């Protein structure tokens, strides 16, 4: 870039930097505000005195959560579903993307599978039929109900398939000439060169599993089986359906006065921590992932 030294351009630069600083502040404000509330004194938080710095710093909320077995049970369910769910997603993505990346000249039937996948991606029976299917299979209140309905991440399969396709053809041919079978070629040749792309889709799987609450809500009838997001949704966000029937504004105000903001804030912060931990990795890979999605032959 050529540097402009005119006064007009300099002041524009300053304006842009200031604008971006304000935008960043707005992006971060709700999160920092919640952090401050979680460390504040209950009375100060409920009176709305806390902005970006805790008032009456204390760790009471976090101490209460540490003794809250239900919270940690839910946390555990979430961790389990992330581990199992992301593993299944990734395993299926890899073993499905590889044969699909072969041209139909080599793998007859490839196009039929492809249409099947796209059909499943576009059409769905909707909420009620899925709910009935899961119930019919007696998967309610098991981890499988959170993991199996979304086991095949079709969009990721297509992304990785496109990635495999763009690898040099010699890679596959050389492996075959050397006597490697299809599984060996996939795991010994294709996987090692696609690690960044696989990392991208895996991270997205992890975030997806960690963040989803709705499947936990409809498939788990016992609160002790809720994953963390569902647990938080029920305790912090949800309004009791009995109360919802003839609700007035006064009810809603009373409800918000009664809620314990510092404790809720602390719960929200703890639920965010796993994401913040993997965020540096996410940031490293997601731009790559978006480029991956847009590069096509």
């Amino acid at each position, binding site marked *: *870039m*050529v540097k402009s030294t005119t006064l007009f*351009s300099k002041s*524009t630069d300053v304006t842009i930097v200031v604008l*971006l600083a304000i*935008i*960043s502040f707005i*992006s971060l404000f*709700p999160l920092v*505000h*919640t952090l401050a509330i979680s460390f504040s004194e209950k009375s100060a938080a409920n009176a*709305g005195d806390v902005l970006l710095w805790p008032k009456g710093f204390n760790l009471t909320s976090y101490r209460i959560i540490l003794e809250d077995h239900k919270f940690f049970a839910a946390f555990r369910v979430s961790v389990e579903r992330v581990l199992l769910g992301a593993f299944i997603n990734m395993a*299926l993505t890899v*073993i*499905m993307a590889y044969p*699909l990346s072969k041209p139909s000249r080599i*793998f007859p039937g490839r196009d039929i*599978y*492809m249409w*099947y*996948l796209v059909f499943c991606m*576009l059409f769905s*029976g*909707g*909420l*009620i*039929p899925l*709910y*009935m*299917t899961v119930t019919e299979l007696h998967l309610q209140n098991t981890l499988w109900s959170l993991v*199996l309905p979304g086991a*095949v991440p*079709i969009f990721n*399969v297509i992304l990785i398939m496109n990635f495999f396709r763009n690898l040099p053809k010699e890679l596959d041919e050389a492996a*075959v000439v050397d006597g490697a*079978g299809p*599984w060996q070629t*996939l795991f010994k040749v294709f996987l090692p060169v696609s690690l960044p792309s696989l990392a991208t889709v895996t991270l997205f799987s992890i975030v997806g599993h960690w*963040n989803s*609450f*709705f499947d936990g809500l409809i498939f788990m009838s016992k609160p002790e089986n809720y994953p963390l*997001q*569902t647990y*938080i949704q029920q305790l*912090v966000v949800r309004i009791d359906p009995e109360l*919802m029937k003839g609700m*007035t*504004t006064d009810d*809603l*105000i009373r409800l*918000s006065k009664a*809620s314990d903001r510092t404790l*809720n804030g602390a*719960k929200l912060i703890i639920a965010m921590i796993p*994401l913040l931990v993997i*965020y540096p990795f996410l*940031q490293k890979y997601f731009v790559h992932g*978006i*480029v991956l999605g847009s590069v*096509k032959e």
Partner: protein
Amino acid sequence: MRNRSFIVNYHLMLLPGIILLFIFSIIPMFGIVIAFQDFIPGIRIWEQDWIGLENFKFMMDIPDSKQVFINTIVIATSKIVVGTFVPIIFALLLHEVRVSWFKRFVQTIVYLPHFMSWVILAGIMVSMLSLDGVMNMIFKLFGFEPVMFLASNTWFRPIVVGSDVWKEFGFSAIVYLAALTGINPSLYEAAEIDGANRFRKLIHITLPGITPTIVLLVTLSLGNVLNAGFDQIFNLYNPLVYSSGDIIDTYVYRMGLIENQYGLATAVGLLKSVVAIILIMISYKLASKYANYRIF
């Protein structure tokens, strides 16, 4: 070279996924027949009473459904419009920054909300938007009366659209930033030799440079006209704002799983999917025709 065993193994690799999709995607698709039944939970699906289009007729008769449809379209369209402009403006601003650490710093911050769930964000918003929350603190500072934001039909839609844009603008800007870096730098150099200032370069080089990307993304977003964002609204709404904020997806959930009107809920959901698929197909058709876009 490749013998039969290769092909057999290819089929084997696809088998588990195909079976899982069959169970959790194809079988539920047969469940849409519930839309044509007077479905009573507890009785086998093939033993239910068939009532033809009764559910659809009933849906047209109740006043709720018209309001729900309007809410969905208004919220989704506003999200598309605002959610297109803001990321473009942000990307243009960020592109002008030459200090790379500042650029990275801003990016790190604005991408973060994208990865947070609506449960967490709704929890934060409920506290911020309450009577003693930060928003009302700011309102009082400027001398306005405090507002119960999440109970107000005037405020609910702006809040939904605003918070969605707040969450996603940074992430949506990534595509535009990529398009901006793709513009040939020699164009700018040529323009400078011709004496173009910053503003003229923006109008004549930068904007035309990213127009194809903008057109493509707007076309593809057509498929989202019926997606007003279930997760977000489900976690923010309450009965007081049904008239401005209840959308098709939340309505289907309440009718179906709370009130046990499986037939009606499935009918509404089916109608939505049919329209959505037509919209998606039109948008992909347009995108592939005018922007050479292919998904696979």
